[in-house]
């Protein structure tokens, strides 16, 4: 054996180098090892995260980074938002408005490393769905706020049911941006009867008639929650056995399901591929402008009311500016302006009167097209739901890490066989 020759062989040493670096990298590249005291202690302590003193109570700094979902604020023809522009004019705060949030989990993934390291994320206001707000509160990732002191318009103008929300008791961390309903949409051209019940979405015998024309959501919380309601279980109180039973319902339904959709269900609903589908209220409102026949119902057993909320991530640099914005959008005039454009449910019931005033103004100007559109907004139960609808709506359950994994595994078997 010739050791010196072996060492000199360039290929051999290259393999050796790759091997050594592989071992080094393998051992070094864990994803944020989880011994951060904030994350683990808060997650296990659960109920009351040590939030500390509320931020705010000071003068705005003049800068605000507001991060929201796409198409979720009013827009004029050149693409800028009148609400933002008017806020800037009134307060002198320079707003950077970005539409970077496509969905809760992947956006959370992008800011989680900074939050865990205790750094500023670069966002002063983020808009997250209720269950994610619940998770972020538990992890200690949101700044506590004092709505009585800093967001008085919320206290004065928000509907009662928004004043105490299960995922953020006492409004300690967030205020709602917009809400929406998850219910059933159906196309009377393809469906002979009136749809009123979850039986008509899940009952294996009933749906035979519409086999292959049923739409469901790939959003685990929405689909699971409707199946839970069908079984008579309140989603927020579901145990793992309840969820397993709900999975059974979804699996039995699966052979007749056309697809498990994201936002694109609206295309198939509009083009007649779906007869009965899970649906979000704001989408159906917009589809109805083209096809007034399409229907949206909150089933007798109940539907889901979800809420996207404005919150200040831990370590944000401009909390006073963020609170000024939160307070600003709770003026009924501003809430109406946003509602007229986004067509989801505003937390400010007083906005309905303002939209009606706008209808009269448009009529006085002879602009019948605008007047018709605004009448549709003001009178639609999808934008301003009736008390009867609201009484049948439930919230998502805020899931722990373990529950989320179990639910997700059960649901993936439904969606992907």
């Amino acid at each position: 054996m010739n050791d010196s020759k072996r060492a000199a062989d360039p290929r051999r040493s290259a393999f050796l180098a790759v091997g050594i670096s592989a071992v080094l990298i393998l051992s070094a590249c864990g994803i944020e090892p989880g011994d951060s005291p904030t994350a683990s202690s808060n997650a296990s302590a659960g109920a009351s995260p040590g939030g500390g003193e509320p931020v705010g109570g000071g003068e705005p700094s003049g800068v605000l980074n507001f991060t929201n979902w796409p198409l979720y604020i009013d827009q004029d023809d050149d693409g800028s938002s009148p609400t933002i522009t008017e806020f800037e004019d009134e307060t002198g705060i320079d707003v950077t408005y970005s539409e970077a949030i496509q969905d809760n989990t992947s956006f959370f993934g992008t800011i989680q490393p900074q939050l865990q390291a205790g750094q500023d994320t670069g966002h002063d206001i983020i808009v997250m769905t209720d269950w994610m707000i619940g998770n972020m509160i538990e992890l200690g990732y949101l700044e506590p706020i004092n709505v009585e002191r800093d967001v008085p318009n919320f206290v004065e103008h928000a509907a009662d049911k928004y004043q105490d929300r299960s995922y953020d008791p006492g409004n300690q961390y967030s205020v709602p941006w917009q809400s929406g309903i998850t219910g059933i949409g159906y196309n009377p051209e393809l469906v002979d009867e009136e749809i009123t019940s979850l039986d008509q979405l899940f009952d294996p015998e009933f749906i035979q008639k519409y086999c292959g024309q049923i739409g469901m959501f790939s959003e685990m919380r929405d689909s699971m929650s409707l199946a839970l309601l069908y079984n008579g279980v309140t989603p927020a109180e579901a145990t793992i056995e309840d969820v397993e039973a709900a999975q059974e319902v979804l699996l039995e339904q699966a052979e007749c399901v056309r697809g498990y959709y994201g936002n694109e269900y609206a295309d198939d609903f509009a083009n007649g591929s779906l007869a009965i589908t899970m649906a979000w209220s704001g989408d159906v409102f917009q589809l109805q402008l083209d096809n007034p026949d399409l229907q949206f119902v909150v089933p007798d057993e109940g539907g889901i009311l979800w809420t996207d909320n404005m919150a200040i991530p831990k370590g944000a640099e401009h909390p006073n500016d963020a609170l000024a914005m939160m307070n600003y959008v709770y003026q009924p005039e501003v809430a109406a302006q946003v509602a007229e454009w986004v067509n989801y449910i505003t937390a400010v019931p007083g906005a309905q009167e303002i939209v009606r005033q706008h209808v009269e103004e448009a009529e006085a100007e002879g602009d019948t097209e605008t007047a018709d559109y605004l009448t549709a907004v003001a009178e639609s139960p999808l934008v301003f739901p009736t008390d009867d609808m609201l009484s049948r709506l439930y919230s998502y359950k805020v899931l722990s890490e373990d529950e989320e994994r179990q639910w997700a595994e059960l649901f993936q078997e439904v969606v992907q066989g």
Partner: protein
Amino acid sequence: MLGWLRRHSGIVPYLFLVPGGLWLIVFFVVPLITTVSVALQEGTLATGFRLTFNFEIFPEAIDRWSTQLVRSLQYGLTVTVLAMLIGYPMAYTIAFRGGRYKNILLLLVIMPFFTSFIIRTISWKFILADQGFLLGTLKDIGILDQGFRLLATPVAVISGITYNFLPFVVLPLYVALERIDPRLIEAATDLYASRLQAFLRVTLPLSISGVFAASLLSFIPAVGDYLNAELLGSRNETMIGNVIQRLFLVNRDYPEAAALSLVLMAGILVSIFLYIRLLRGQELTV
């Protein structure tokens, strides 16, 4: 510097390899090692992942998703065969009968690439919609049953993938066929070969390197494709790419997703190895 290079001229070829080598290390070796590492970790996103060398994950993942793994390999194989059956005559015609239209015909083959992969696939969704202009019309004039549909069937998914990867098949086949000297085929017919014999014994063997390249270029991306199954399929057409995508982005179960990715890579490598054995003795490189 130049003088040093002249004295050690043996090193120059290796220097030329440096850019490519770095590229491979940064974009292939490092991601591959990361994937192996992630597969062997346990934990959650909020509390972090730790390397525990959990090799159990591989049999678990294979067991849980075997249907989708097998389906993906089947779809990949079907797509490759279909693309070859459609692409070979196309490439043959362009190479031998294209004449002065050759360049235009090649341009037409590449033309779909001027729009994005996603847009092209979404367009198929519109074309094949149950009440869309194609099926809707055929149903209205009574040729098709009202309940007939193409979307959400294996036919739609396999056709979608075949359509999307067809140019990858035509181009290497064209290159291989174009280089064949027509006089060889003339010689074969002069020696009393029929046209079929000339094709089977001269043209086809000479183009086998193109067939090899074309089938790899369609099989590998087809097996890993998830977009067509996502847009044109339903849960019964779920491919392994869809499962991995959901595990990564929705469930945030990084270890299982990474493990499945590695299983998929291994599956593809084994298939290719078998394929090379099948073509043993042929001249595969050019």
